């Protein structure tokens, strides 16, 4: 049993839960850039939130499955079509053998998740199966899918059958305008006093070369009076660095594990899944919060989601 990629689009990869516990050997998180959309999609086909699904970026992608199966699509795609007929997002859908599944371009937003009832075969390493593109590890031979790739699926008869629709209150509104809450970073105050307040006053646009590793935040450059280099130190998805140009750089799911630029802010965990929906041209406003408040927000979000999704972890 398998799924054939008829049109791979711009960057389509196998992604699920991130790699965990290996940053000290330089292994990044990788995994779904939008962990919440992944979890919602997986739940609609009866899977745990971190299972492997297909992450589709910006452009249209087309698939064909050779066996009857259940699927679900959650994300920024403009449309979902089976053999040319429009289908709803956020609902368990059924494919017959040979049906063609069209997943539209992202309008607005950036990424869409296709969950499938059968287990998607993906390379396993370090306890994970997500794709880490820069080193060619995990997923489908460590790379983005290409036209005519065939991905193996396990027999779906082992998966429990479900018919689900995401409650309207839990559906994300995909947008090109985001508010992201941030805490201060280790170098926010010393030697960069006032820089976070400046950053939160200004709107930013996501630069043209945005990808899973990170994205430039274009706007009025922040003033940096100090030499903008420091001994390499840990960074994480959602860390905002300040290179000498004064143009902040927001790290994504594939962020390297360490960096040498001042860490002036950190997008809070509760909002980090939204980074996966930021594409070139998206607009962002940052809002400062405290670490304690960020923890409360995260716990509130988890308790809002867990009655529907069960055990849920966002990254």
């Amino acid at each position, binding site marked *: 049993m398998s799924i054939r990629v008829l049109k791979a689009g711009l960057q389509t990869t196998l992604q699920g839960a991130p790699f965990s516990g290996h940053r000290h050997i330089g292994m990044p998180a990788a995994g779904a850039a939008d962990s919440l959309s992944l979890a919602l999609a997986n739940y609609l086909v009866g899977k745990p939130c971190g299972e492997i699904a297909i992450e589709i970026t910006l452009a249209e992608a087309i698939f064909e499955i050779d066996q009857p199966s259940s699927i679900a699509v959650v994300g920024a795609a403009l449309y979902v079509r089976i053999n040319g007929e429009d289908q709803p997002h956020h609902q368990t859908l059924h494919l017959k053998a040979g049906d063609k599944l069209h997943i539209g371009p992202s309008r607005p937003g950036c990424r869409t998740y296709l969950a499938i009832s059968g287990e998607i075969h993906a390379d396993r390493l370090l306890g994970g199966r997500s794709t880490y593109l820069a080193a060619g590890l995990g997923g489908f031979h460590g790379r983005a899918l290409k036209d005519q790739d065939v991905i193996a699926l396990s027999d779906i008869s082992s998966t429990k059958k479900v018919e689900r629709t995401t409650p309207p209150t839990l559906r994300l509104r995909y947008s090109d305008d985001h508010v992201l809450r941030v805490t201060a970073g280790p170098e926010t105050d010393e030697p960069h006093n006032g820089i976070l307040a400046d950053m939160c006053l200004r709107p930013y646009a996501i630069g043209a070369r945005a990808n899973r590793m990170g994205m430039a935040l274009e706007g009025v450059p922040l003033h940096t009076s100090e030499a903008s280099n420091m001994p390499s*130190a840990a960074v994480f998805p959602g860390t905002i660095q300040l290179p000498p140009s004064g143009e902040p750089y927001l790290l994504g799911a594939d962020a390297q594990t360490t960096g040498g630029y001042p860490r002036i802010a950190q997008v809070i965990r509760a909002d980090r899944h939204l980074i996966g929906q930021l594409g070139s041209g998206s607009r962002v406003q940052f809002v400062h919060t405290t670490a304690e408040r960020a923890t409360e927000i995260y716990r509130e979000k988890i308790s809002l989601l867990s009655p529907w999704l069960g055990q849920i972890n966002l990254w």
Partner: protein
Amino acid sequence: MADYDPEMHICDDWISITMPDRETILAAQVAFTACNHWTEIVPGLNSIAVQFDPVEMSPDEAATIVRDQLGGAALASEPSPIMTTIPVCYHKELAPDLDYAASKLGIKADALPSWHQSHTQTVAMLGFMPGFAYLESPEPCPTIGRLAKPRQLVKAGSIGIIGQQSCVYSFDSPGGWPIIGRTPLRLFDPEKAEPALLSAGQAVRFESISREEFESWPRADEE
């Protein structure tokens, strides 16, 4: 260490702790690894960071645990890891910046390999890519600096040097460090129980090999 009051910065799910020296970083890494509170423990050059699940603990609770773990018991350093020897081919086709680095060091290009092999280095940390190692030399030396224009492609195994600090590239990747040689060793092998060849704190020495030895070196993935 009993009264050790570390300088910390707390984000919502990770804490960065400033460290006085390499020995303390390594000892802290051992202490943090010995418990299961942390989802990530990431040494830096003069800091270490721990990440936690904010459902399990609040930032304040995490900070208290960090203080306890750093100060409660004397930090024990790991016994020094065994010296690792890294074979390096300094052939110019594999070392495009050999002349540049030598001129910055004020030595002749053909003297650079023996200079490079003459002192033991220490792995400061891993980062950038899986298995990518930052090395520090105890010997002061002139600053070489990064290339004005980073390369789009540096081959896996390349040895970069900017002065007292050098690095070993673990994967083909972009990079801006002057390259003075290449090792045939695989720095990261996900099939192994310990995928990274090197680890923070490890002592490393380099040993020159010929182009022929480089080409015929047994690759782990072909054995």
